[in-house]
């Protein structure tokens, strides 16, 4: 339960951090808040040769608004986003963030770190996929932006290359005429979600995103449905997610939760819209 040995680099500029990643490839890992990485190190599920600490880079610490997006750089802690003025522009984030880990881990863990970790039940990846957000990646030589749906490629795997770091994630702000809702089911508040659901409802469309069931957060769009037509759509979505049994819940419970909680978040968003 102690990490294997590694060098520790305190990056003083973004270029230094990217240079270290470029020269070590897959043997280097970025450390920010450490709330996902340290458990992996302690359990030796990850044994990097070098850690690059990016929390000393002031440019990565400020949340900003860019047009219709809330841009959250890699040094922003989850509690800082939750307490920020910018979060008021996206009610889904405001609803989901209090469920992200515990009070004692949100104070250290970063928003981008959660995206990089890509746990299938995590709230940040769910919100990014639900809202159609993007992940901004950078190497020493180039920067690129990846749509959230393309970034999360599997269980704890992403489209990020070894020499890339997440510079920021961008969450679209609320669209006029849309309402949002979030719910999750876990054994205790703060535990990993067994299933989480995020909905956006507009006058002519429903987007429903689900985490904790498939290997990545998945989103489906429906027309405005109600009654048994909505039940049928939710049932088809629940089966399409290919739920599996594990220690925490059966595949059947997960499908039930997608159907029931999916309907509940859609109805909650509909009430907000009315």
């Amino acid at each position, binding site marked *: 339960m102690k990490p294997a040995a590694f060098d520790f680099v305190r990056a003083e500029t973004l270029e230094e951090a990217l240079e270290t990643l470029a020269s070590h490839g897959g043997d280097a890992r970025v450390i920010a808040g450490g709330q996902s990485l*340290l458990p992996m190190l302690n359990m030796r599920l990850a044994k990097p040769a070098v850690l690059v600490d990016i929390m000393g880079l002031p440019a990565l610490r400020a949340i900003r608004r860019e047009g219709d997006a809330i841009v959250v750089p890699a040094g922003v802690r989850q509690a800082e986003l939750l307490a920020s003025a910018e979060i008021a522009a996206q009610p889904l984030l405001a609803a989901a963030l209090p469920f992200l880990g515990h009070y004692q881990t949100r104070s250290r863990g970063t928003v981008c770190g959660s995206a990089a970790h890509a746990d299938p039940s995590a709230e940040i990846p769910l919100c990014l996929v639900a809202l159609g957000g993007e992940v901004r990646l950078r190497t020493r030589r180039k920067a690129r932006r990846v749509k959230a749906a393309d970034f999360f490629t599997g269980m704890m795997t992403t489209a990020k290359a070894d020499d890339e770091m997440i510079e920021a994630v961008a969450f679209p702000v609320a669209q006029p005429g849309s309402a949002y809702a979030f719910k999750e089911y876990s054994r205790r508040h703060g535990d990993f979600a067994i299933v989480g659901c995020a909905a956006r409802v507009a006058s002519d469309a429903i987007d429903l995103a689900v985490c904790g069931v498939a290997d990545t957060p998945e989103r489906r769009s429906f027309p405005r449905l109600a009654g048994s037509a909505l039940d049928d759509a939710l049932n088809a979505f629940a089966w399409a997610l290919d739920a599996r049994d594990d220690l925490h819940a059966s595949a059947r419970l997960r499908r039930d939760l997608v159907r029931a909680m999916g309907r509940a978040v859609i109805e909650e968003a509909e009430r907000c819209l009315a």
Partner: protein
Amino acid sequence: MPRLSATALHDVRFTLNGRPARVAAEPRLLATDALRHGLGLTGTHVGCEHGVCGACTILIDGVPARACLTLAVQFEGRDVRTVEGLAPSPDRLSVLQEAFRRHHALHCGFCTAGILMSVDAFLKTTPDPDEHLVREVVGGHLCRCTGYSAIVAAVLDAAAILRGDGSNV
């Protein structure tokens, strides 16, 4: 760009409970082990060592942190507080500690240090919390003795005293 070698001991300097402190640490040394073994401060307890139980919770720059999910080298230049720094003097408990004693909010005491640190930070930013919020914060700690009710009562009582709303002592 400072690069700390994996195999060397590095001098980490920080503020610990208001006083300058230093500890020699390899990069892989956890903050829990630096506090307990390096500095002899055994008030910070080690339970699960992967961030779940909350027994090792300390404050870094005034916000709660799992010491087992923190590297000692991350203390560099930071303001660190542990349970040893809560009491105003060796013969007096803090208001929060006194409330825990009064309400029997600990039995074996293993989880207590971490809970005290979390709640100490929480009440500074949220002086008038409702029970739901207190339960959410305390829910970040595993306590297998008390059933939490006495802990919640102690926190609400301490909050009232700290606000100057009198107490039910």
